[in-house]
């Protein structure tokens, strides 16, 4: 017994229902009977869909990495290991174009809905003649096109379909530690996969061990500026709030303040909203979208956030303060959060980690930043 969609072989996960045996490991995606073959898609790629152009020039390092990526795909999968803000999306464009020109099916999968919507717009500009479609949450009326941009969860709709699958942010939720979803993602591809990440962790290494892959690294941002190295401040919780007040009062930039949980997010917002123009956001907040938009547009100078804002947000001249209490943030969280600083060509900012102890995760983060900055 094997589930074709998620690869489960454990008999404990098979249940005999009215229509026959089905796999319960991937049941939340829909019921797939054991004798059923998941749906796969065929689609004729429109001519000219592969033509692409950037509204900006890629750096020589980006061009080099992009060519390496395409070359490596001829023989194996690719691990794109780049620092935050290095332009991972741009590096995959040449490979995508090459596959489209050969009439092969391509998808770009990423964790979050908001990023899918943003990427769809970007890819429409990059590939003006291609039918770029997005699939996420309740937006799944059209499932087939020249280039599919979707959330990782939506890959269950495409079994054995893609000749090239770009899996972005493999180190993050929901792919991180989710073996079922990772298997579904891998099984949606019948050809090559580009695993794209900024923080290569042991979980991803274990997955890659089973596959043939080549690593393409890019540790230089297009701006040639180093990654922001945070100022470490060790204080207890009470003094941390005073310190936070001081930093907020002195900085001229806008600022993202990452906090470990929703409760502290709301409470700090309630305290500081009397003193500064600020807003807050966490995953299931109803006003999530409007608060993020207000911060992006500059209506507020400060935003308190849980890890929801660690990815997919680019704001020029932004500072980052991380309140690292407890064990909520690991190395990949910290790197992504710090990666919000200095994105774009002439952007600047500072970063701080305020904590009550020097954790291993912080130590690993500092080592990573040191290594990444040594390439400059």
């Amino acid at each position, binding site marked *: 017994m094997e589930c074709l969609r998620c690869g489960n072989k454990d008999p*404990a996960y098979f*249940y005999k*229902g*009215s*229509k026959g045996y*089905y796999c*319960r490991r991937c*049941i*939340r*995606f*829909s*019921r797939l009977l054991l004798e059923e073959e998941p749906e796969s898609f065929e689609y004729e790629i429109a001519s000219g869909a592969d033509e692409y152009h950037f509204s900006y020039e890629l750096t020589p390092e980006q061009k080099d990495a992009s060519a390496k990526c395409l070359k490596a795909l001829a023989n194996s999968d690719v691990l794109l290991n780049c620092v935050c803000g290095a332009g991972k999306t741009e590096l995959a464009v040449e490979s995508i174009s090459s596959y489209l020109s050969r009439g092969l099916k391509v998808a770009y999968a990423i964790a979050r809905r908001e990023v899918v919507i943003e990427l769809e717009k970007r890819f429409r500009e990059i590939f003006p003649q291609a039918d770029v479609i997005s699939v996420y949450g309740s937006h799944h009326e059209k499932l087939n096109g020249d280039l599919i941009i979707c959330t990782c969860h939506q890959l269950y709709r495409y079994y054995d379909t893609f000749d090239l699958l770009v899996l972005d942010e493999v180190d993050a939720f929901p792919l991180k530690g989710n073996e079922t979803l990772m298997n579904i993602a891998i099984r949606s591809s019948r050809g090559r996969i580009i695993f794209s990440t900024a923080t290569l962790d042991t979980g991803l290494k274990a997955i890659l061990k089973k596959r043939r892959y080549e690593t393409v690294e890019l540790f230089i941002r297009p701006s040639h500026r180093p990654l922001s190295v945070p100022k470490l401040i060790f204080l207890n919780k009470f003094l941390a709030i005073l310190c936070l007040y001081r930093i907020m009062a002195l900085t001229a930039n806008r600022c993202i303040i990452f906090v470990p949980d929703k409760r502290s997010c709301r409470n700090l917002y309630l305290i500081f909203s009397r003193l500064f123009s600020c807003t807050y956001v966490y995953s299931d907040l109803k006003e999530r979208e409007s608060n993020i938009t207000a911060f992006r547009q500059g209506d507020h100078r400060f935003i308190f956030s849980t890890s929801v804002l660690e990815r997919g947000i680019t704001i020029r001249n932004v500072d980052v303060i991380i309140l690292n209490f407890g064990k909520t943030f690991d190395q990949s969280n910290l790197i992504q959060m710090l990666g919000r600083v200095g994105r774009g060509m002439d952007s600047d900012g500072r970063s701080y980690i305020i904590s009550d102890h020097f954790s291993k995760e912080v130590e690993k983060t500092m080592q990573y930043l040191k290594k990444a900055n040594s390439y400059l």
Partner: protein
Amino acid sequence: MKCLYCDRKIEKYTFSSLFLKEDGLCCECRSRLIPKRKIINIRGMEVETFFEYDGMFRSLLLQYKECCDEALKDVFLYGISDYINLRYHGYRLLFVPSSQTKLKMRGFDHLEEMFSEVKLKRTGGLKMKRELTQEGRNREERNLMLNNYIYEGGPLKKVLIVDDVVTTGSSLAGVFRTIELFSPKIKVLALAYKKT
């Protein structure tokens, strides 16, 4: 044994689990699905409910109905089925019919499966005139359900009308209207109520 919802191994057991049948949920998941009996008055009917359609109940019901996870059929009435057997002794169960399309897609009647542990006699003969679904419909549109049922069975002494979730009560009221011509004593039960 693994929890049917979170997949974690069931290691802890509660005192009540010593007396009841084996639960499909672990203690943590069960603690988020504790029945709280509530009688609600809707469209002139007294409807007995046990859960609020929210959080855990909602997730489980969606997985059961929309993802067709039949394995979950016994978790909803765990600890309640004995109560229903005693409380409604002598009543006949009448399930609010689902649309044929959904039945065909699922391959099972979700209410019948859920109430498989309830020992009351069943009665059939209730049909939908037209295939109407309630998803995404507003209150006015849901009123179409009021005259959408037809009963083709004989007279009944005592009937217990059963549905999974009551929102506006239009389905239950539709069935109630149809059945009251055939039965002098009718009670209504819905597993959960949805705040509107």
